[in-house]
């Protein structure tokens, strides 16, 4: 064991020496805020409330809390440890942990997050547009919000805002780790939390807000016994915490050697779900207080592009918040600013993951950023101009994230779970020690959960699409198999070439 410890320490030392030119997060708080920026995204705000409403309120919160412990936190711990040890982006990191013949798995993880970056930039653009509309007063002075959304989404404006979002994200990455990612996330995440707390106070003091809280926290037995509620809770954890995406792994590359892994991971998991709870309380209190029609039917709707009530119903509710147009405009602007900040902080991490992959291929950071920013904009154009393309990409790569999580667990199993826990997680620098429960979760629970989720989502698509095998339909099993298959086959064929790009560069 002692020999193993010295070996791991030596490898880490050599890698750090090679990384001299790279930067590190200046403090634990800089790292935590940046990583919280990854985890907290639009999914915490619009997806969480919708899924809670569709799955019986409080009944959903119980499994959602459970899966935080058996999916999100173990995977966040794993990503932190892998990134800190390997000092490589997902492609090189998985190759180092699982063995070079599995480089294609790392490439798949990096590709999935890159594909998400293309359309997530479009989503970020929508939030920017709605923030501008709220500030200028256009949003609250409109009587028909569906019409406003339709005219916006069917025109060329999403393309313009997608460009702005990609530009903002790329400029941050271009400036590097400390001046770019750390500094920006400190402002974005602290402002986002402050805004949410201000809106929370207003929301819970609205008349009848307690009815929303009652629904939000009351469990119903028939929902708790429904397996779909549990699967939705697991899905929410998989999509919303950023665990298993390879993003936390990428930021962990820039952790100082003496930085802790388990405590930081716990802070990110609990921090992310704390923000989801705040957002849920805000939405439920506001909708139950201000909605003139059935509140539940409004929150449960998928809305345009699965954005729920965000772009159609919330503006309507904000216009009824008080009799003062100015007060309503301020609260609507604050809400959409928080949403835009949540989206930008996540987009930054997606751009960084792809940029880091190109840096590992031998590119210099600034050149890699310009390249990634340019093709990120180009490949996002179809999703910006066509909501069907957007929905297809959201479905295909959203479900693929479950596969990414499974690949990370597989890499650790190949490395040796106990060795991984003792040497990489519970190293000299860790503030708290992780017990053997971690081994059981990574070895058995994560693979089991990933298989169940994948089978469930793909099998479910049969119920909503009779031609479930057709690869050219928007959301079914066929389009997933087609697109994943194409990418996986290419990466497996070129496995050795990718290896050489990472490890044999002069």
């Amino acid at each position, binding site marked *: 064991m002692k020999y193993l410890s010295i070996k791991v320490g030596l490898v880490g030392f050599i890698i750090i020496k090679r990384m001299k030119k790279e930067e590190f997060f200046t403090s634990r708080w800089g790292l935590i805020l940046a990583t919280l920026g990854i985890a907290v995204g639009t999914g915490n705000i619009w997806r969480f409330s919708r899924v809670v409403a569709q799955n019986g309120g*409080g009944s959903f*919160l119980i499994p959602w809390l459970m899966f935080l412990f058996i999916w999100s936190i173990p995977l966040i711990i794993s990503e932190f440890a892998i990134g800190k040890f390997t000092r490589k982006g997902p492609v090189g990191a998985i190759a180092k942990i699982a063995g070079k013949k599995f480089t294609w798995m790392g490439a798949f993880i990096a590709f999935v997050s890159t594909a998400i970056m293309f359309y997530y930039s479009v989503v970020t653009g929508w939030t920017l547009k709605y923030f501008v509309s709220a500030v200028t007063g256009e949003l609250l002075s409109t009587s028909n919000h569906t019409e406003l959304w339709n005219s916006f989404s069917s025109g060329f404006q999403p393309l313009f805002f997608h460009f702005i979002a990609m530009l903002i994200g790329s400029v941050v990455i271009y400036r590097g780790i400390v001046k770019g990612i750390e500094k920006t996330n400190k402002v974005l995440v602290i402002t986002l939390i402050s805004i949410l707390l201000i809106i929370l106070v207003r929301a819970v003091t609205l008349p009848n807000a307690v009815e929303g809280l009652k629904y939000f926290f009351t469990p119903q037995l028939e929902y708790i016994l429904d397996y779909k509620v549990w699967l939705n809770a697991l899905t929410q954890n998989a999509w919303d915490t950023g665990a298993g995406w390879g993003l936390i792994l990428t930021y962990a590359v820039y952790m100082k050697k003496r930085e802790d892994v388990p*405590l930081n991971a716990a802070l990110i998991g609990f921090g992310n779900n704390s923000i989801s709870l705040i957002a849920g309380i805000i939405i439920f209190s506001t909708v139950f207080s201000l909605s003139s029609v059935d509140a539940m039917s409004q929150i449960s709707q998928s809305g345009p592009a699965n954005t729920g009530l965000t772009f159609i119903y919330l503006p309507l509710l904000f216009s009824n918040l008080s009799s003062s147009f100015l007060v309503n405009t301020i609260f609507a602007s604050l809400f959409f600013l928080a949403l835009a900040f949540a989206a930008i902080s996540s987009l930054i991490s997606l751009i960084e993951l792809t940029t880091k992959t190109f840096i590992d291929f031998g590119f210099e950071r600034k050149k890699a950023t310009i390249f990634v920013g340019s093709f990120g904009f180009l490949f996002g154009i179809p999703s910006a101009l066509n909501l069907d393309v957007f929905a297809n990409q959201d479905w295909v790569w959203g479900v693929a994230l479950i596969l990414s999580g499974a690949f990370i667990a597989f890499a650790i199993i190949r490395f040796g779970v106990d060795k991984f826990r003792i040497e990489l997680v519970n190293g000299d620098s860790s503030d708290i020690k992780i017990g053997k429960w971690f081994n059981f979760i990574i070895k058995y629970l994560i693979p089991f959960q990933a298989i169940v989720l994948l089978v469930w989502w793909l099998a479910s698509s049969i119920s909503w699409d009779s031609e479930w095998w057709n690869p050219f339909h928007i959301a079914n099993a066929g389009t997933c198999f087609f697109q994943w298959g194409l990418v996986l086959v290419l990466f497996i064929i070129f496995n050795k070439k990718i290896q050489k790009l990472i490890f044999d560069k002069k």
Partner: protein
Amino acid sequence: MNFITLVTMILVAGTVWGGFIFFLTVAIRKEKRKRLLE
């Protein structure tokens, strides 16, 4: 609010927010100690 709602609220919000505050406090203490040792 009935009893079950209150219990769920305490269980869920208490665990999530309580967990965050607990780990944040531990992190602050560890950072202070590290700074003192330096």
